[in-house]
């Protein structure tokens, strides 16, 4: 995939925060499922069904081990992280929140971590409170602490920001939240693919991630929830698989995680996610993280050298680590024009827009930004090529003025 050409140039894929490319092992695993043992899970007696069920449940176990959940029943397969957050909102949220309860979020959250809670607030009368950015362009942790009170029932935070590249001190946030009796939902979409994440260490109540950002296929993601919390939650979607007994006027429900997995799941895709986890684990998340820290610094320093560039998020230092992504703008050139030129002239794939973070962009005073985001298969040469192409882009647009 990466070796293809785009518009006559070699493709340089730098849009990994949007989605990652897949190793052959993952593609093979999905193909093998469909070719060799495609069958519905949990229902059948025959060999194929047993095999499919075994592989599906094995994938669940791999996720549990990958994030150090205490049991695989704490992993619920969903379509993606967005669906996982909606599950918590509609199931836990509607059951537990009432008028004047508070949900604390940051202004830098992804839309999927904001909009479902707006639905819940509208239905229950709960109130959303937002943490704004401090002068270092990261969510103001002091402000977050001050916003917590006995009225706070839930804190929703990203682990790593898809725009600012900043990392939040989730362990501390969880301690403070638990002190006031609030639960914490961690959006780990940009962390789980890039570093070792330990849910027991974080003590998070809920954690969500998507497969497609971590070398896995689209169409599958997961929700991690502590056993006791999941057990107390009502179902989200109704249908097959999530029931125990069905009568005409009522039904009884299965235990988690099945309670939250109505209908036939994305079996092949779950198997693919399992293969992605095997692939990443074989390299080791620590090695991947160390590699990316180095690459992140190289990217930041190289991008900073481009004239009239403005990079958003914190400046990296000894104490402040950035993820291997940069959202930026160049004076007087629209980010979409930059992205188009990079694609058309140089085969470089970056993203431009609001990156599903409109409140964040509004607070930064911009309508859009360009974003370059790297993953384990990118290199310093990719960064050099991008910077060269970006300089060419700037010269091109300036010459038209």
């Amino acid at each position, binding site marked *: 995939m990466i070796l293809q050409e785009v*518009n006559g140039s070699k493709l340089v894929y730098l849009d990994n925060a949007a989605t990652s490319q897949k190793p052959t092992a993952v593609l093979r695993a999905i193909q093998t499922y469909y070719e060799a043992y495609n069958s519905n899970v949990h229902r059948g007696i025959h060999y194929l069904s047993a095999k499919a069920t075994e592989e599906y449940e094995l994938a669940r176990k791999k996720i549990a081990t990958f994030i150090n959940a205490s049991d695989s029943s704490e992993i619920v397969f969903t379509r993606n992280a967005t669906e996982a957050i909606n599950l918590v909102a509609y199931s836990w949220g509607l059951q537990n929140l009432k008028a004047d309860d508070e949900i604390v979020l940051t202004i830098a959250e992804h839309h999927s971590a904001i909009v479902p809670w707006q639905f819940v607030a509208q239905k229950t009368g709960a109130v959303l409170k937002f943490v704004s950015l401090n002068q270092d362009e990261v969510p103001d942790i002091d402000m977050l602490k001050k916003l917590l009170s006995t009225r706070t029932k839930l804190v929703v935070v990203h682990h790593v920001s898809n725009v600012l590249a900043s990392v939040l001190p989730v362990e501390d946030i969880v301690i403070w939240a638990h002190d006031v009796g609030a639960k914490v939902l961690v959006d780990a979409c940009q962390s789980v693919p890039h570093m070792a994440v330990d849910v027991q260490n974080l003590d998070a109540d809920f954690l969500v991630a998507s497969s497609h950002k971590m070398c896995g296929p689209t169409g599958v993601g997961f929700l991690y929830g502590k056993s006791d919390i999941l057990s107390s939650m009502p179902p989200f979607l109704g249908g097959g698989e999530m029931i125990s007994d069905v009568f005409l006027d009522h039904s009884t429900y299965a235990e988690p995680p099945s309670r939250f997995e109505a209908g036939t799941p994305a079996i092949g895709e779950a198997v693919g996610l399992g293969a992605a986890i095997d692939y990443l684990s074989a390299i080791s998340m620590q090695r991947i993280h160390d590699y990316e820290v180095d690459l992140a610094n190289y990217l930041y320093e190289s991008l900073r050298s481009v004239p009239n560039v403005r990079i958003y998020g914190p400046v990296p230092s000894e104490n402040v680590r950035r993820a291997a992504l940069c959202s930026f703008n160049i004076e007087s*050139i*629209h980010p*979409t*024009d930059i*992205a*188009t*030129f990079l*694609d*058309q*002239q140089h085969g470089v794939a970056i993203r*431009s*827009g609001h990156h599903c973070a409109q409140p964040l962009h509004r607070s930064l005073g911009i*309508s*859009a930004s360009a974003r370059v985001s790297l993953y384990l298969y990118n290199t310093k040469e990719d960064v050099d090529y991008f910077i060269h192409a970006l300089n060419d882009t700037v010269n091109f*647009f300036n010459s*038209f003025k």
Partner: protein
Amino acid sequence: MNTSIIRTAYPPSHTSRPCSRLWMKRIDSSSGCTALKFKRENESRKSLKCVRIRDFGAKYSSELNGRRNPSSSATGEFAVADRLQLLVSEFKSLAEPMERVKRLLDYAARLPPCDESARSPENRVAGCATQVWVEAEMEEASGRMRFRADSDSEISKGFCSCLIWLLDGAEAEEVLELTAEDFEHVNIGLHGKGHSRANTWHNVLISMQRKTRALLEETKERRRNPSLSEDCLLSLSASLSL
């Protein structure tokens, strides 16, 4: 203020048309039009339209100029279908995607400047990755559509510029007849004909068509009910153009 023109959100300064003065200067220098045409512009909007459209062509591209349909320049008739053919064949002839980007940037530079007031929320084109604003009005005498557009992105401005060259002065029905497929070969930066936010052509065209439809409805309503107040018509137009 010219009360005979039915319009959507137009700033009063629009009637002074700084844009048209710019065009007139170019007309005089590039196509050798006489001072007589300049006077005619002030007397009749219809003549302005005819003059402006002919010289839109002169302004835009010598290639387009060369290929212009002889029948349209002879009669002064405005033929959207012909112009579309020219636009499509021009872009098709530019094999390299970068050549198309450069041509679009050329057209962007020629887009008449709009003042800040045009950048209002009701003029914003929905669904675009960049910010694009479109204004529309219908000339009461001729029923033809007039458009203005602006964007914060140069490439989007280029798209707008082409669409305005195509549709400014067209009949309402001609505007409504166009489809996104007609522009398939003119697309830049979107490989294929997807309905994504990056498909500016599609979104701006839809916006122009929506506003055209609203103005058509307003005209019909006005003909059915001559006593309807200006405010009623404006709110009808606003609700139809959403």
